């Protein structure tokens, strides 16, 4: 079960209210940033941040504090309180807040909700339903409405909302048991429901865990030492031994592996089959082969060369470059590729992605996205980074997921070959928005860059070329470093 420690903020300080009553404030005179770091170190993967001043005033007040928390923790952050227009939603989401919590605004303003969904996707939104005797409460719990929560829930379902935080106000901060009736009903409708209010001791958490609820927020119990976070994390930990993949990339031109900087100034780096064999032996978790001249010179990837590499490696093998049709994919798969990466052709003809996923299965289709920042916004580039499109990267990533892509290979062009570190801000935006795995590419130079891409970028795999080709980093050493830093890695 997902455990989400709460940090409620008033005037830059960490507080708790009782039953949402602003006159019953209890200060826990702690620095919220310090608390957030503490929770994350203890093993919390997600934090619930509420700007209580914001909730009361209807606009963000503790933005600076929240920004500081974002800067200092890698946990998934959900933020609520005073987000009632698009501008404020955008402010938080562009900052790299993973999910914003909308309450009052959502119930009164479906147009706003639709606009946020259209721009950022459904994954970035959580709706908070504060319920008192089956009726919705709004404005920081100061107004009780006559609206039944189920009628609102049905409308939210139509918008395809996935996550709901359900707070029973009569129980919040009272250290009593939560009321499970509304939660069960919301679950039946198909929401992922996060329980809030009254989760105050380990017995309650055990009980919720046994009943297979999706998640719960813990607050006061934690601050008053009635719950030990270490125990809770241990009890509710979601088992997962899946390892983070390390992927060497072969950029191939005229039958040779080459490597450039920012997609230019290409230098020879060796024979593809030889390098493939070398990396498989060295412990690479996957091999990516990109025929980088294919799109430009409008010719097909050399199936023979692919077959030559495939013959000797028994790890997953992804091939891209110049893939334009179902027929191209078929040829590459027959030659021994396990997965095929679609790039430019997918942008020019998005239907190709859908058809390919349908025919070969999503697991087979990787969509490669080359991104470049222009005026503080990332755009999709095609034709080996030569041509800018008007597609914002975030929107394109969501679209390819919808069309059936099984994974995204995200390359930050400005980082390519620079060894300046991965574009973690961009990565975070993408991994927060889509639910398919994302491979980070472009900029891996130092061993710590790889850790940062996994930690702050939340990438599922990291890809690099030069550092491996020129023996700057050994795969073995990188993996040992990741294990030391508590990542799962295959050895």
């Amino acid at each position: 079960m997902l455990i989400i420690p709460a940090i409620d903020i008033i005037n830059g300080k960490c507080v708790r209210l009782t039953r949402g009553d602003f006159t019953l404030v209890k200060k826990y005179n702690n620095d919220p940033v310090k608390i957030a770091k503490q929770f994350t170190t203890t093993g919390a993967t997600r934090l619930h941040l509420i700007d209580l001043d914001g909730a009361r005033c209807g606009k963000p007040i503790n933005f600076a504090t929240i920004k500081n928390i974002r800067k200092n923790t890698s946990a998934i952050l959900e933020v609520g309180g005073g987000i009632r227009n698009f501008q404020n939603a955008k402010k938080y989401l562009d900052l790299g807040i993973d999910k914003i919590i909308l309450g009052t605004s959502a119930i009164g303003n479906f147009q706003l909700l639709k606009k946020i969904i259209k721009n950022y996707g459904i994954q970035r939104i959580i709706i908070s339903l504060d319920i008192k005797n089956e009726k919705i409460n709004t404005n920081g719990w100061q107004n009780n409405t006559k609206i039944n929560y189920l009628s609102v829930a049905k409308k939210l379902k139509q918008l395809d909302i996935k996550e709901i935080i359900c707070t029973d106000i009569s129980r919040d901060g009272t250290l009593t048991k939560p009321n499970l009736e509304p939660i069960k009903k919301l679950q039946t409708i198909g929401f992922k429901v996060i329980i809030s209010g009254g989760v105050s001791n380990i017995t309650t958490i055990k009980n919720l865990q046994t009943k297979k609820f999706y998640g719960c927020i813990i607050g006061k119990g934690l601050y008053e030492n009635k719950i030990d976070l270490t125990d809770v994390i241990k009890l509710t930990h979601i088992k997962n031994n899946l390892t983070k993949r390390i992927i060497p990339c072969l950029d191939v031109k005229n039958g040779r592996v080459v490597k450039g900087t920012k997609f230019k100034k290409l230098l020879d780096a060796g024979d593809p089959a030889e390098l493939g064999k070398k990396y498989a032996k060295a412990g690479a978790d996957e091999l990516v082969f990109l025929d980088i001249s294919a799109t430009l010179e409008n010719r097909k990837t050399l199936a023979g060369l692919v077959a030559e590499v495939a013959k000797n490696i028994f790890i997953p093998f992804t091939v891209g470059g110049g893939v334009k049709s179902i027929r191209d994919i078929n040829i590459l798969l027959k030659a021994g590729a396990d997965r095929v990466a679609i790039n430019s052709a997918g942008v020019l003809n998005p239907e190709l992605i859908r058809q390919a996923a349908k025919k070969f299965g999503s697991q087979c289709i990787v969509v490669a996205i080359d991104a470049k920042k222009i005026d503080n916004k990332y755009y999709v580039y095609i034709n080996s980074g030569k041509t800018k499109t008007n597609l914002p990267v975030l929107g394109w990533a969501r679209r390819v997921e919808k069309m059936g892509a099984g994974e995204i290979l995200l390359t930050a062009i400005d980082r390519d070959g620079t060894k300046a570190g991965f574009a973690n801000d961009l990565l975070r935006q993408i991994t927060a928005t889509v639910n398919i795995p994302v491979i980070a590419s472009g900029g891996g130079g130092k061993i710590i860059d790889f850790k940062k891409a996994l930690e702050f970028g939340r990438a599922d795999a990291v890809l690099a070329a030069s550092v491996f080709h020129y023996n700057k980093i050994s795969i073995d050493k990188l993996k040992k470093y990741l294990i030391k830093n508590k990542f799962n890695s295959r050895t």
Partner: protein
Amino acid sequence: MIAIIDYNSGNVASLANALKKLGYDFVITADKNTIKKANKIIFPGQGRAGQAMKQLKKAGLIDILKNNSVPFLGICLGMQLLAEYSAEDKTVGLKIIPGQVKKFSDNIKIPQIGWNKVKLTKKSPLTKNISNLSCFYFVHSYYLETDKKFVLGETDYSITYPTIINKGNFYATQFHPEKSGEVGLQLLSNFCKLC
């Protein structure tokens, strides 16, 4: 001769490459007589359960798969199809192994793509010379739930679920041994040596 069942459900090139590397003769086939004569059967599979069962029916292979008595290895979807029922497309399976195929719960990324550990729970010639907790390569959204007595190995992904199973001459792995490096080749080689 090893028969790799080709029922138009996924790519068998990698599997062929692996068997070549190990030095075993094989034939990629959907022909009943060829399969009958084979002394081993490998049953791969990718894609969706519903479509795969349709293809098997169309090729007339259901009975021959169920009633064979030579060592048989299901891989990935080829493991899931051995069950009685799959939640994917509400598909009735081959009913070779008692059990149900379910989808991973939504508290984790689906599909699972990548390398995960396999805890060996029972000794078997199939897992000879394979270290406990070795990593294998997985790509899937559904898992097979079956009786512990059929389980040779299991894996943690949200839940602990069977990833190597065996019942009589039927063996199966949820992961892709042909894509799991040295340890995967070891498992395939163990299978090829079964009599």
